[in-house]
């Protein structure tokens, strides 16, 4: 469980996050939504100390993150960043690097690391590409390799910054189902999403951010009823009940 209390963070002298109070609970998919530049990615980065917070406290299972070294933090939280580099290595090797934080002397990956990497590749459906070079894959498949690497890290908390980017709709749905499955196993999954329909359909909890602050949080139904989406994004949200559940539509004000 991650507990953020009165957290402020930013870049240099510019404060982006103001007084954030947030609990990220295990067994739930928490989705961060908000307009561009509202601080969603900065919030994730502050949790893994990429953008260290300037005030307040962030604790993982009761331990302050600044007290944990890089390896200990990576054994509790995995992070899929928004901007990614494309390395010139095989898919298997890259997914295997998800196990880096567990490397011990003599610094060779163990049998269980290979097994975990294989499982992660199977989970996202890229096991047949294991010996392919990542740089030769399409953007969507590269995204899946990154997701598999984060899954191979096998942490109680998974942070994903726009994980559905580059994925076609079928793979987006599969990813969201994977997130639900991980949450069902007791993991805390946090995702930054721009697709509000998916956020409403798959999230257990939605956190709405605007200008560096959390303006609403709760279950999707609570957030929908509060009309905070309308005011934050300056759109009108409407929904219709269908055989596959609620479908959400948006139109500009």
């Amino acid at each position: 469980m991650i507990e953020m209390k009165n957290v402020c963070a930013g870049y240099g002298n510019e404060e982006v996050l103001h007084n954030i109070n947030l609990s990220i609970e295990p067994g739930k998919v928490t989705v961060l939504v908000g307009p561009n530049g509202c601080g969603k990615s900065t919030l994730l980065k502050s949790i893994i100390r990429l953008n260290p917070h300037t005030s307040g406290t962030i604790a993982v299972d009761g331990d302050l993150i600044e007290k944990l070294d890089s390896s200990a933090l990576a054994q509790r939280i995995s992070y899929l960043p928004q901007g990614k580099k494309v390395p010139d290595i095989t898919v298997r090797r890259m997914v295997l690097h998800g196990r880096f934080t567990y490397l011990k002397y003599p610094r060779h990956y163990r049998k269980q690391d290979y097994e975990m990497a294989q499982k992660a590749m199977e989970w996202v459906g890229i096991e047949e590409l294991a010996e392919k070079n990542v740089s030769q894959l399409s953007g969507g498949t590269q995204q899946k390799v990154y997701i598999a690497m984060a899954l191979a890290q096998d942490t109680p908390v998974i942070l994903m910054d726009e994980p559905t980017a580059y994925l076609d709709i079928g793979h987006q749905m599969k990813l969201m189902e994977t997130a639900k499955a991980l949450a069902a196993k007791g993991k805390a999954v946090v995702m930054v999403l721009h697709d509000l329909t998916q956020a409403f359909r798959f999230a257990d909890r939605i956190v709405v951010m605007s200008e560096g602050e959390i303006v609403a949080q709760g279950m999707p139904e609570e957030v929908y009823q509060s009309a905070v989406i309308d005011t934050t994004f300056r759109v009108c949200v409407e929904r219709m009940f269908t055989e596959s559940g609620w479908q959400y539509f948006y139109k500009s004000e």
Partner: protein
Amino acid sequence: MNKSRKRIFIAVAVLLVLGIILSVSLGAVCLTPAQLVNAIKNGSGSGLEGNIFWYVRVPRTIACLLAGAGLAVSGVVIQSVLSNKLASPGIIGVNAGAGFAVTVCCALGALSGWALAGSAFIGALLAVLLVVGAAQKMNASRTTVILGGVAVNSFLNAGSEAIITLFPDIGVMSSDFRVGGFTSVTMTRLLPAGILILIGLCVLFTLCNELDLMNLGEETAQGLGLPVKKMRTIFLAVAALLAGASVSFAGLLGFVGLIIPHIARRLVGGENRHLLPFCAIGGAAFVVLCDLAARLVFQPYEIPVGILMSFIGGPFFVFLLFKNKGGHRRD
């Protein structure tokens, strides 16, 4: 390791062994196989051939191997840490920093192998930290890092020239040193630098996974548990150690750290557990063969190997620039 990669490794290793045999045999005086065997058996006391073998050819060949391996591996590390495939120790000012430090050291009269190798390391380290530190502070693009390196190169080379002008008697800055060459290598000068290069290579071979992670970018690497800032400093320090120690006896040998990593990536891929050893072997083979060519092509004259490498490396660099055309747009 897959079969094709294994074949490539074996082919380059064979090339290296062949290069070593030719390097100790050929030159102004050619040694026959029988003379070679005799020199090896009887040591330096086996007449003129023995002296040539032990005091000229062996130090020179070892110097080629060490400089080739050191500069090529240093190039891979610098390219990975800077995420810039145009970077190399010769281009971003690392070699020039080492050269400047060696010049200062000689001007001060400290001519021992350890003093030269140590000062070269410090000069190389300061140069790379200056370029990388400034680039990070300014959030500079890849092209700007290269231009910054070129500026540091010019500045440090001008500094070296100024010292030579003021202290004309210091022997180290011969034309051989300025362009890179092995004619004046001795075992005394080679030994300390060789130890440092071997230490640097051993350290890097244990950090292949960490270097792979650096290639994934700072955010991903940190998310995977790599202490990125600490590791960046360690990698740059080891790259400076390799390049600096090489410069201390080989002079300002350019382009090895640029050409070899590019060719190696094409042949064995980007996984550092394959790439680093391959660059070490490939760099050593490349420098040994280039040195051999520099000795033999214009016989009876011998040109410094750095000149030959610049003839190869210059066009290669331009090729890379065109291949990455608009590199600044991709930043």
